[in-house]
């Protein structure tokens, strides 16, 4: 909804992502604030943000797959792992960081398309089981090949561009933030293309979409490939950040949490991914800072899990459409203020 009095006079204006001057100011201010945050945040927070960025990119991929195309997947952690292993292997071979990240995305995309093949025949819960199988198959496979390090895992070097090495959290933050902006811009545009609209069409009614001429199988495969591409990018960045890849780092629970980020943030919105993952990671990290001493350990430690679960349930009860919807409601309200009515 545009502010009162604002009209689109051309198709370009109509499809613009950033439409008004206010939106430009907010966007630029947000980016500047983000760029300046290493100046006032402690180094430990920067490390958390770096890890969160990697996971955010994977969540954006899952948003395209699940939020837009309606294909539920619990295997995002495995595709994340594919990207991570790809970077670790290529960095050992001396491939430059950016090329290795892109390769990580592409390899994950191909693997994702392969495991997305059953999606033509199955959907919903059955597709979830297929992606669950994909998770276990991929993580088992990486332990069987020497090139993947087997049970030992692989080390990965710090990211580098040319001779410049990103070996501190702050340097890594600026690199990752740049990649995040790129991925977000890419994802925002993917969902506005013909293919993005096809994703939404098959999500809402795949039969109707098929009748209208949308090639279901091709579109679903493309959705998997696109979603897993972002997972691979995120995984490759994660490998360079963590410095080590091992199957134990890519758990099924992590794959389920990606769905959790979407649900809390809001399905069907790229911005919702930001809300979801920021809130959940902030709560997780905040809970780890609760002091644990003495006999209280046996109660406080599991108590934090209970609290966390209650927060998630609370979000789902009071705003099942996710935190992004709350933001949309707020925006609508302030645009009409002081004449807003309930």
């Amino acid at each position, binding site marked *: 909804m545009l502010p009162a009095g604002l009209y689109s006079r051309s198709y370009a204006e109509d499809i613009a992502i950033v439409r008004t001057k206010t939106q430009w100011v907010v966007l630029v201010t947000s980016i500047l604030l983000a760029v300046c945050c290493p100046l006032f945040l402690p180094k430990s927070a920067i490390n*958390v943000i770096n*890890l969160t960025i990697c996971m955010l990119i994977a969540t954006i991929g899952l948003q395209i797959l699940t939020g837009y195309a309606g294909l539920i997947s619990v295997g995002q952690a495995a595709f994340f792992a594919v990207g991570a292993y790809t970077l670790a292997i290529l960095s050992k071979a001396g491939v430059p960081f950016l090329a290795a990240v892109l390769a990580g995305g592409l390899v994950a995309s191909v693997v994702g398309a392969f495991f997305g093949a059953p999606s033509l025949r199955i959907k919903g819960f059955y597709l979830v089981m297929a992606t669950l199988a994909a998770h276990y198959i991929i993580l088992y496979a990486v332990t069987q090949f020497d090139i993947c390090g087997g049970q030992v895992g692989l080390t990965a070097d710090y990211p580098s561009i040319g001779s410049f090495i990103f070996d501190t959290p702050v340097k890594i933050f600026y690199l990752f933030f740049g990649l995040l902006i790129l991925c977000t811009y890419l994802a925002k545009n993917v969902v506005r293309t013909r293919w993005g609209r096809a994703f939404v069409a098959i999500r809402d009614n795949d039969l109707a979409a098929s009748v209208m001429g949308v090639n279901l199988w091709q579109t679903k495969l493309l959705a998997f490939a696109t979603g897993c591409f972002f997972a691979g990018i995120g995984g490759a960045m994660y490998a360079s950040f963590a*410095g080590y890849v091992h*199957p134990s780092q890519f758990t099924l629970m992590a794959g389920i949490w990606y769905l959790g980020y979407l649900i809390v943030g809001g399905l069907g919105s790229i911005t919702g991914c930001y809300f979801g993952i920021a809130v959940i990671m902030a709560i997780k990290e905040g809970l780890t800072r609760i002091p*644990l001493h003495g006999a209280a350990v046996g109660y406080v430690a599991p108590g934090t899990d209970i609290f966390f679960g209650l927060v998630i349930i609370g979000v789902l009860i009071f705003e099942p459409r996710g935190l992004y919807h709350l933001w949309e409601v707020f925006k609508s309200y302030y645009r009409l203020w002081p004449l807003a009515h309930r």
Partner: protein
Amino acid sequence: MKRRDILAIVLAITLVAVTACATPKAPDAVPEVGKGEPQRPADGVYPGYNAPLGEPSQWSYKGTIRIPHVTDMTGPAATSGVYAHAGLDDWFKYVNEYLGGVRGYKMEWNNLDSKFEPELMINAFNRFIDEGNPVIMSMIAYVMPMCAEIANKRHVPYLGLSGSVGLAILDPEAEKTRDNYHFQMSPVLASRMAICVNFVLDDWNKKGKAGKPRIGTLNMDNEGGHEAATAVRIFCEQLGADFTIHTFHPKNITDAIAQVSALKKAKVDYIITGPDLDQPLSVFGLELERQQTAEWDPKVITITDWATVYLDTLNPAFEGHYTYEYCLTWDDVDKPIIKLAHQLNEMWHPEVTERPFLYVAGVETSIVFCELYKRIIDDVGLDAVTGEKVREILESFDGFDPLGIGGALTYNRWDHQGSHSLRISQCRDGRIVPVTGMIEATPLTPEQRYRQYWLQD
């Protein structure tokens, strides 16, 4: 000779004699360390251990040393993590109240629950290092290889309870090129398996059975599990036992039917397990009891998590099987340190009557950290300490005796195992009863120092 000449000679002799008497006494020779007498904690008086316990005192501390401790307190290893944490806390409480801390500094653990999540472990390690901590402790941590990688990359040591050859040992090539920042308190997994196989053979002979014992394994499907599995097979072949089958499982299991059925089909007499977690061991134990018959009643020799579950539940499924541990247990009340632990437990936790091995391991770990920080304060001081310096100080531990609670700890450049001995105990009558003394592990050959050597199976 004139009189003045005689006087001069007498004066000279007198001067020489006086000078010789005034020469300061040469200091006592520094005892050679590690060559006979173990290193003992520098301040030798411990109330309750070698002196009457008395009452705690009010101390005025110079400050507080907060040591980061990252462990799973929720998840499949939660029980072990909570008990270990209790042991860590209790010893520091004792040191603070009865000894005035370490060199006047109050000791505290800065605990973080990693919740069995890798990203929380990564964030925790990075955060503690960014906050300037020169050393990290991680009693029960699922993703140890990753933690070791962070520690090695950022040059901050971390101390764990156990680990694989790849973590604790530098092979001959690596020894020349890098330092290792992973330290542990106990023998590597491969060495533990050698002791277990030897125990099996002894037990078999004591029972007067003919032929060779048939041994199978159960392990987690990770590096540690595969190292343990390979080691069991190799030592069975070397020592004359009959190796049959490996079984593996993921970190969380809802049933162990496949594993137990395979071991039953192989008619194993003993099942040896490597590093594992409370949850899968519980499931395995229950399934084993379900499939046991009069003709097939194998004994399990496993990691101490089994004993923790046994003490918590007293379930007969866990009765009669064996566990290995590298320090004393709650039953060793004839040992002064355990007697002291009992006294402290009666004062502070009267409702708790039994403590599993990991509690005692926590106490031992705190003893080691007290000694570590004594050396840090004496050597460089708290303000100037770095991760590299802590590594050097840890590598100076040469036969350090942690008040007799476990084997002596020795770290050197390529061997970060700490203690090199294990003891086997049996879960019996609601207690963990030792059935052997401390058994020294055979030193690793140069070939066995390579990680890949132990990942054949």
